């Protein structure tokens, strides 16, 4: 069987393994695997939907640009959870192992071997996209922190946004300017 047919005939089993493997990176994954209501279980739903979409893109040989959206939905979550960067994105690679295993288990694995190299090359590109997305998420998070300080929503301890402190500073600056204007 060529790899394409293998990926398509074993889709359900492979996806299940992949999803379980990713959910197993959480400390108590049982609930995430079981609860089917997507609003009661956002992690479980986001991961299983995202992985399925990614799998379809790989299976149907679609443009890899399309992988950005499902990838982002998962990475966005893992980027703020308690994972190291490598663990946060490692789920992409987990598919490699699973597919290899499935391919090796075939009676005539010759057929799928050729396809495997291409498949893995594509998967590597997805993994690289995942790194970029991870960084983007972290940067977004830092921007939000800065925005929060600047907007005054967090203004209380440092006085940067305290209106009276600002007024005083502005008055002082104005006085300074007058002073220096006079000197020049």
């Amino acid at each position, binding site marked *: 069987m060529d790899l394409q047919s293998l990926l398509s005939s074993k889709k359900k089993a492979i996806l299940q393994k992949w999803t379980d493997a990713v959910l197993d990176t*959480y400390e108590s994954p049982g609930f995430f695997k079981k609860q089917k209501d997507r609003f009661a279980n956002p992690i479980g739903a986001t991961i299983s939907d995202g992985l399925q979409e990614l799998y379809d893109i790989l299976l149907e040989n679609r443009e890899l640009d399309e992988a950005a959206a499902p990838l982002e939905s998962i990475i966005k979550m893992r980027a703020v959870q308690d994972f190291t960067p490598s663990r946060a994105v490692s789920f992409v690679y987990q598919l490699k192992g699973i597919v290899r295993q499935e391919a090796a288990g075939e009676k005539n694995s010759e057929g799928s071997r050729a396809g495997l190299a291409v498949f893995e090359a594509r998967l590597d590109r997805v993994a690289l996209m995942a790194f970029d997305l991870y960084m983007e998420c972290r940067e977004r998070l830092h921007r939000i922190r800065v925005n929060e300080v600047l907007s005054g929503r*967090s203004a209380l301890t440092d006085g940067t946004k305290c209106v009276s402190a600002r007024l005083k500073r502005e008055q002082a600056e104005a006085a300074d300017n007058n002073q220096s204007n006079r000197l020049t």
Partner: protein
Amino acid sequence: MADTKVEQMSVDVVRDPSMMTGAIPRKDWMDMPVTFKPGNYCYPAKKSIVEYLDKGLPGLFGVPREWQVESDDWQLPENWVEIILQGMRERLDKFRSFKVFMDICVRCGACADKCHFFLGTGDPKNMPVLRAELLRSIYRGNFTKAGRILGSIAGGRPMTFEVLKEWFMYFYQCTECRRCSVFCPYGIDTAEITMMARELLHLVGVGTNWILEPAANSNRTGNHLGLQPHTFKQNAEFLLDDIEEVTGVKLQNLTFNRKGAEVLFVIPSADVFADPGIFTFMGYLLIFEHVGLDYTISTYSSEGGNFGSFTNNELMKKLNGKMYAEAKRLGVKWILGGECGHMWRVVHQYMETMNGPPDNLEVPKSPITGTVFENAAAAKMVHISEFTADLIKHDKLKIDKSRNDHRVVTFHDSCNPSRGMGMLEEPRYILQNVCNKFYEMPENTIREQTFCCGSGTGLNTGEIMDLRMRGGLPRANAVKHVEEKHGVNMLSCICAIDRATLLALMEYWNPNVGVCGISELVGNALIMEGEKVRDQDLRFEELAGAGQGEEPGTNEEGE
């Protein structure tokens, strides 16, 4: 009775797949140590702040000192274990609910998967039942016979530094939102257990700066930002200019500290200060001017939010007391409160017994509609949404709904007004009357079952942004759904902390969705006497179809 289960409890509660959670942890939870690292804890309170609070309420905030959360030496007093146990003993005597909650949990697990922190992290100690167990195990180990004799076999354990660390970690990963309590067949309120744990932590000087500094500010100047009266007034008045620019109307009725006003209006101070609360504030003022309410704002009771409620009963009481004191000083008849969250939890649940009854106040009666707010007969304080909904019901507001047509709105039930005080219908009634495009989020994420913003109870601080994003995931996930399905671009709410925290949450998860208070939308829609052609909303953003609408001159009194 429950003790037959206790033996297995420490493992079962997370291991047994027949539990609703199906969770399978790697180890017994009692053996999983906590590790603090940047991003997972709040900064400890500054020494100067604790010194200040200690002057007013000696002993309740521990010994003022500098300490590091990541260090293994928190500079605790030598007898800290004794202080905690003594504190626990006193509270078990004083608060019956605390004792009951310690005794009656049957570990059915119904609450386990209901907490947004569990749903966003997968950390079993964020299951409400285990969160409570962190404290309950100490209760058992020290205050029950079985626990004292059998120790961990009976689910008890001694108070150690490791336990203290656990408390600091997990009772600051609970926003006291009470979602779990909705599902508990015994009505156990984990939020109250968290309150007790935080009281105990404060006794040994373990508190966060983000909570204690605003609390100290509120005590000193009347609001959490530490704004002084003139600044507070000045800022509010700046907003009058903005209102004039948008509507063409110069409002006349805003006053401060005016004796003899009929109504004292108390707001969360962020509403005069921070975006997007300022637009909500503009909405309040437009409503009051529209109906000619005789109101005043106090610059001393200039904070609805009660940061004391995140520390202990005493500070909560002290900060809350300012409202009645100001109401008395100014001689008003009743108090109206703005769109605030925990202010309402305190007002609704504790104010009347803590600082009341306020003998100088009357049962609130709307001077415009004549409605008597019987529900507020005890505390004498009415919520702005009740007030506005009543005005709409009696047809006292002239409204042009289409002015919110550029907004596709959904509504987030903030935990305190919704679960805390049962205010579910009024905000929705208002929304249905002031905008054409209002869509609800899924049923199991709103009303009593609403998901917390993830940053309440003093967790809205920058250093734990990651944690806030995890905790807010279930809420954001529901917003995403209505954004995709209906094109929702505005998340409305009636809580000042939410207006701040949801903004950060949306920026991360759903960047195309803005955040607003309900009164802002009312302000947009109100047809003011003598107004100009309105082509912008209160944010100076273009209205939908601006320039081609009909004249807003349906105004009876207009020339």
